Structure formats: structure tokens, C-alpha cells
């Protein structure tokens, strides 16, 4: 049995460089999914608080579906479903099969799930903003877009931040699922290391510790962002 310290070292005998590369993939997947999920979630929240009943129903169907399905199932449906769809479409033009890459499939699936939860967070944040804010902005002659950008959004972010930080931590953990469809993230890389070296407990333990470290770093970042978002508030 090889020495444990050789196994976890960097270099040809050790696995740390592979696992570090996996960590980069995990973090980039989460970071790439975040803006997608936030954007869709925000527009879903707008739709849910719209006066137009059809818009509300359509948005609610979306959330019911993607909050009710296991993330793993959503991932498979996106991965295989889009693959089949692309194959049908591309068959019209070329004979070459198109493969959807697992990073993109993961991004879409996790983004869709994230957005359906984020829409609820945004919706309750919208409810926390007084109607007087809209009326005040109107009295100042701001357009609807400027009202949203200058008056509502800054307050919305502050109200939505705790909920969104929770969703970020969940997203970070959910990226592990994408390893199942072949993305070389932390979990997959440590899985390979575990299989090759027969030290499963060691390497999956390392993977868990990396996720823990990532969430600790995130918590620190979130604390900082929360302080930043409250900079305009009066001290009490």
C-alpha cells in the first residue's frame, strides 16, 4: 500500500492536482449557474406578482414542476432530452451526431431548479417593499424601468440576500450531482482516485472536506456582502 502522503501530494504519484482541477470545475459550474438562475428567478418573480392571471399561472406551473422533481431527474431529463432533441434537429442538416456537454446540461438543469426557488425568495422580497416606494418614484417622475433600477432593486437585493445565500450554498452542493453525467468535478475526480488507489474513505473524505471549505469561504463572502448591502442603512 502506497504511503498516504504520497497519494495526496501533488505530482505524478499524488492525486491533489487532479482534485484541485476538479475543484475549479465545481466552482466554475456554480458561478456560471448563479447569474442564469438569478435572472430567470427574477423574471419569474415579476411574472408571479403580475396582475395578469395567465402570467401568474404559467410561472407557478414552472415552479411547481421544478421544485417537485428530484434535481437528479431534472438533470437526466435535460441531459438526455436535449440530446435527443438536438439529434432530431441536427439529423435534418448533417449526419454528424451532436453531443451536449455535461457542463452545459448541468448549468441548464441546476439553473432551472435554482431559478424556481429564487423566484419565491424574490417574490417575498417584493412583498417586503412598501407600495409608497413605487408611488414616491412615480411622483419624482421616474419611468417604470428607472423605478425598478434605482428604487426597488437596491432594497430588493437587501431583502432577498439571506434567502439567496441559502440557495447559493444548496447550489454549491447540488453541483456534485453533475459528476453522475460525467463532469470532472471534485466528486468525480476523487472517485477516480478512490478507484485507482483503493483508498475510498480517504478520497471521498477529502472531497467532503473540500465542499466544507467551499461553504465556509462562501459564508465569509456572504457576511461581507450582507454588510455591504446594508451600508446605506442608518446605524442603530
Amino acid at each position, binding site marked *: 500500500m502506497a504511503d498516504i502522503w504520497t497519494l495526496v501530494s501533488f505530482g505524478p504519484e499524488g492525486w491533489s492536482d487532479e482534485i484541485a482541477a476538479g475543484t475549479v470545475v465545481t466552482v466554475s459550474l456554480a458561478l456560471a449557474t448563479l447569474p442564469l438562475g438569478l435572472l430567470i428567478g427574477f423574471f419569474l418573480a415579476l*411574472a408571479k406578482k403580475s*396582475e*395578469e392571471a395567465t402570467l401568474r399561472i404559467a410561472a407557478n406551473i414552472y415552479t411547481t414542476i421544478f421544485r417537485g422533481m428530484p434535481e*437528479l431527474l431534472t438533470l437526466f431529463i435535460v441531459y438526455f432530452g436535449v440530446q435527443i432533441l438536438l439529434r432530431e434537429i441536427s439529423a435534418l442538416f448533417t449526419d454528424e451526431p451532436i453531443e451536449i456537454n455535461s457542463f452545459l446540461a448541468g448549468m441548464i438543469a441546476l439553473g432551472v431548479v435554482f431559478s424556481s426557488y429564487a423566484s419565491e425568495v424574490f417574490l417575498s422580497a417584493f412583498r417586503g417593499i412598501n407600495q409608497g416606494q413605487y408611488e414616491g418614484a412615480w411622483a419624482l417622475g421616474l419611468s417604470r424601468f428607472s423605478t425598478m433600477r434605482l428604487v426597488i432593486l437596491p432594497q430588493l437585493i437587501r431583502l432577498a440576500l439571506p434567502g439567496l445565500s441559502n440557495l447559493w450554498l444548496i447550489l454549491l452542493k447540488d453541483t456534485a*450531482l453533475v*459528476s453522475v453525467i460525467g463532469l470532472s468535478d471534485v*466528486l468525480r475526480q476523487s472517485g477516480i482516485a478512490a478507484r485507482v488507489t483503493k483508498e*475510498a474513505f480517504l478520497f471521498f473524505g477529502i472531497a*467532503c472536506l473540500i465542499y*466544507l471549505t467551499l461553504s465556509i469561504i462562501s459564508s465569509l463572502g456572504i457576511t461581507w456582502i450582507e454588510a455591504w448591502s446594508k451600508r446605506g442603512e442608518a446605524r442603530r
Partner: protein
Amino acid sequence: MTVDVERPPATARRGWTGSRITGYASLGLWIAFGFSLVWYVIVSFDIAFMTKYGPRFLSGFLVTAQLVVISIVIGAAISVPIAFGRMSRNRIIGGLSFAYVYFFRGTPLLAQTFLVYYGAGSFVAELKAAGLWWFFRDPFNCAVFTFSLNTSAYQAEILRGAILNVGRGQTEAAAALGMKPFPIFWKVVLPQALIVSLRPYGNEIILMIKGSAIASIVTVFDLMGETRRAFSRTFDFQTYLWAAVLYLMTVETLRRIWDRLEARLTRHLRRESD
């Protein structure tokens, strides 16, 4: 002299506004999607497929139900000492239970499952010596083991939050009536705490149903596992659609039952005028 005052636009606007067009378009899209789904299922309906995989889906569904029920119950039992550990004034006990909760909430369930299922293989000799190898050899047991520990961490936080939520005055008033600490907890604090924690408990059960799909990756043939097996043999995409329908129906039914239950149990808190 009169001043023209511009008024805010009336709330309900008529005609084809942008949001109305988007609303009809998106709802129309969903309806079209629903119809094409039904159409797809009718067109690709195959009696051989149904008779072969229908019962398997059912047995997978039962495995999922077992996984969830056993894990939630065992998790609830483990969560009680951990919740008290978290509230303990003893720093070692408090620190240890904090670390436990932080570990299970801060790492992916999939990584934990791998750690237990494959990690147990690293300790075959020790586990055999302890007479526990038969337990960890079976993927179903490993999944139940991991899920129970995982949900116990979440449930401990729910329980702790709910107990801390009950006002201090309740305990003091009960003490003033001469009640002993245990009856105070059992008859005064806990009933109020459980009502507060109904909603988070419901959410945790739903999360567990969804999370249990992970067991399929360590070769447990739950609903997701049966789906994956059927897909790998037939390459028929409707397997995934059926699984989606089953999961959605389960979660929605549970959510609705839970809403009813909560409304019923909190009916004494509602005012007549509401």
C-alpha cells in the same frame, strides 16, 4: 389657475399589454407542452413496455417510500440528542454537535453516500471483526444509514429553532405553577415548538423524497434506479417522463396533505375574522 396633475396609471390596464401577450404566450406554451406530452405518450404507448416496466416502477416507488420513511424516523430519533447538544452550555458537547450539523449540512448528500458506501470498503477487516459488514455490504442499508444521519442534522436544526422560538415566559410561568422540568418540556414547550416546526418538517420530508433519488447511483433500485435501468435497456425517453410524473404527484400530494394538516392543527391560532 388649475394645475394638471398626472396620475399614476390605473392599476388594471385593458387591451393587449406586453405582460398580457407574454402571459398568454407562456401559458399557451405550457398547454402545448402538456398536449404534446400526452400525444407522445399515446403514440409511443406500448403494451409490452407497460407490462414489463409498470410493475418495476411500482416496486421502485415502494423502495423510495421505504427509504424515506425509515430515514425520516431514524433521523428524528437521532435529531433529539443533537438538538439538545446544540443548546447545551457545555462547550465540548455544543462544539461536537455543531460540527456534526455543519458537516452534514455543508457537504453534498451524494458525497456522503459515496463516503459511506465505498468508504466502508476501506474498513472491511474492521467491520467484519465488529460483525457489521453484512450491514454495510448492502447499498440499501448504506443509503438508509447516510440519509438518516443527513436528515437528523437538518431535523436537529428545525427542532432547536422551534424550541428556542417558544418564549421564555412559558417556561417561567410553568415553573411558577410548580411544574417539574420534564413535564414543562413535554407538556408546555414541545407542543408549541412542534406547531412552529410543522412547515419546516414538511419541507424536510419533501427534500428527502427528492434526495432519495441519489440512492439510485449506489445501485439501489428505487424509483429513480428502476427508471435508469429501464432507460439503459430501452433508450425510451418516456421512462424519464413517467418518473417525473410519479415524483411530481407524490410531492404535490404530500404538500397538499401537509397544508391541510397544518391548517387543522393551527386552527386555534386563527382569528374568527380571518
